[in-house]
């Protein structure tokens, strides 16, 4: 009995501390709220810096010059020219090559893992493919520059030492796991009843996949493609190393092409003094990059949510 009394005493004693306790209880959510708002502040920080410095840039350079002319010579002492088009073509061409690799291979990998592979095979292959996603991009850059480019030059003698083709391919390989795992998720969420329905009509696995599973999962699959493109556009190190810094307005992927990201690297690590137009130009480019990737990410989320079939 005495023991019970002891516990009660203890609890009562503790209750004297309850005032302090309720103070803690009240301040904790406030503190946590502050921590949570850091992420919002980060976004605010990104948007406001980009907008502010971009605004300063467009005081010197017109929007028309930036988006419609084709010459980019930021550091020319005589007559600097600022057009984003050479960078846009560089970005688009490298991303295009990347997606030409990532979409077919990523999608077929997803189909294989989701529809064809036995659970045991899937269990082994899936994490191995994920390893590709965990390799730092700088390593891919090294690989593109010191291995893939020299290899491609064996077959395409005209290929430049830096070019859009090789980093594009390597970027595509990097994006395979992203496309594969998101597409596979989409296909896995197609109910088995639908596969059975098609098989009961005498369809082969291929017919089930092409005519039932892929159409049913198409929104998730397209979302994976869009996210892949967004990743390719924002990728920096591979293209900085292997695509070079040529600012010519060209569509020739065998030659050096600078992407938006590589331009930012060049200007920040170069001599452009703070306050010059060349310096502000990198914010204008970064802002363009930010808007592009943000829109694509939002679009991907929108389609995968909006068109998710209610089975």
């Amino acid at each position, binding site marked *: 009995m005495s023991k019970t009394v002891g516990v009660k005493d203890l609890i009562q004693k503790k209750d004297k501390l309850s005032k302090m306790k309720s103070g803690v*209880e009240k301040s904790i959510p406030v503190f946590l709220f502050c921590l949570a708002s850091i992420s919002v502040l980060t976004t605010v920080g990104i948007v406001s810096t980009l907008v502010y410095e971009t605004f300063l840039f467009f005081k010197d350079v017109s929007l028309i010059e930036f988006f419609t002319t084709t010459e980019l010579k930021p550091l020319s002492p005589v007559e600097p020219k600022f057009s984003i088009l050479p960078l846009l073509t560089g970005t688009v061409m490298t991303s295009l090559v990347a997606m030409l690799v990532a979409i077919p291979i990523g999608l077929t990998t997803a189909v294989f893992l989701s529809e064809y592979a036995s659970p045991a095979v899937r269990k082994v292959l899936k994490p191995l493919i994920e390893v590709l996603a965990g390799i730092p991009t700088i390593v891919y850059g090294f690989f593109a520059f010191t291995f893939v480019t020299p290899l491609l030059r064996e077959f395409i003698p005209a290929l430049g030492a830096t070019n859009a083709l090789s980093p594009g391919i390597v970027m595509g390989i990097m994006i395979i796991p992203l496309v594969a795992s998101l597409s596979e998720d989409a296909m896995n969420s197609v109910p088995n009843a639908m596969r059975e329905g098609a098989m009961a009509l005498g369809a082969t696995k291929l017919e089930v996949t092409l005519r039932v599973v892929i159409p049913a999962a198409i929104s998730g699959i397209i979302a994976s493609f869009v996210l892949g493109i967004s990743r390719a556009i924002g990728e920096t190190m591979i293209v900085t190393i292997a695509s070079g810094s040529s600012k010519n307005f060209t569509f020739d992927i065998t030659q050096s092409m600078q992407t938006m990201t590589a331009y930012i690297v060049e200007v920040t690590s170069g001599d452009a003094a703070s306050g010059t137009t060349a310096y502000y130009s990198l914010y204008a480019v970064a802002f363009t990059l930010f808007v592009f990737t943000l829109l694509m990410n939002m679009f991907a989320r929108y389609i995968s949510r909006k068109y998710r079939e209610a089975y």
Partner: protein
Amino acid sequence: MKDMNMDIAPEKKSYIDLNVVQKKMSARILLNKIVNYLFLLSTLFGLIVLVILLYRVVADSIGWLNIDFLTNKLSTSPDRAGIVGAIIGTVWLMIIVGPVTMVLGIGTAIYLEEYAKKGRFHSFIQTNITNLAGVPSIVFGLLGLTIFVRVFGFGSSIIAGGLTMSLLVLPIVVVSAQEAIRSVPQFLREASYGMGATKWQTIKNVVLPSALPGVLTGMILALSRAIGETAPLVVIGIPALLIPIPGSLFDSFTVLPMQIYYWTIDSVLVDEYAHLAAATILVLLTVLFVMNSVAIIIRNKFQKRY
């Protein structure tokens, strides 16, 4: 139900010719088999590239990766160059990124899962985090350059790089911590409340310990992302040839990926630099491999306990 009788057409006309179906069947099945192997081949493609990549790195670093390489300071001479500075720089970076993302990430996750009312504001923060996760890392670099390097006046120091990198990997920690907290069963919380515990006591003593493995896994993945990330640091400005070893948070520094970057682009000038880059990559990949293995072990060990 007379109309139903009329629905059934009396005609016996057949559209499906069994002979035709049979004839086409073998071709369809053959195609399915061929495609099966093509898909397998395609799946293996990524793995083959992975093997080639690893082989290249290992082959290139043989003879270069040794104790001297790990303990020497940087040097323009390939024979004497080492990465001790980059290793220590990477450790310094982790000293910032680890605690900062842990406090910010877990705090945000607790707020979102346990305190915030599910409504507009909640989904606003959630969307914001999802969007941040998709922002290219180089844009974070510009944020760091503008805010931490210039406005706060930290210069290209460890603290500037560390804070920038923390913001970059924050979404990874938040999302995985949220998932871990969400997977703590409700009955554990109710048991704690049932004994008169307050909300914070419940979170501190019941929810967080149960969510710990998931949180840790997310932390490790975030740190391994930070260790391998290069672009934001390039933007912040890391010198190509930094010989002194950093001693405080406000010193300039270099890290393993930066060293790989400089040696790779300079390998056109000095052939041996490619080997140094490969050796550094091998060190980096080994570190990442160990970290990811630990994460997987933690995840498997604590999976599905309820």
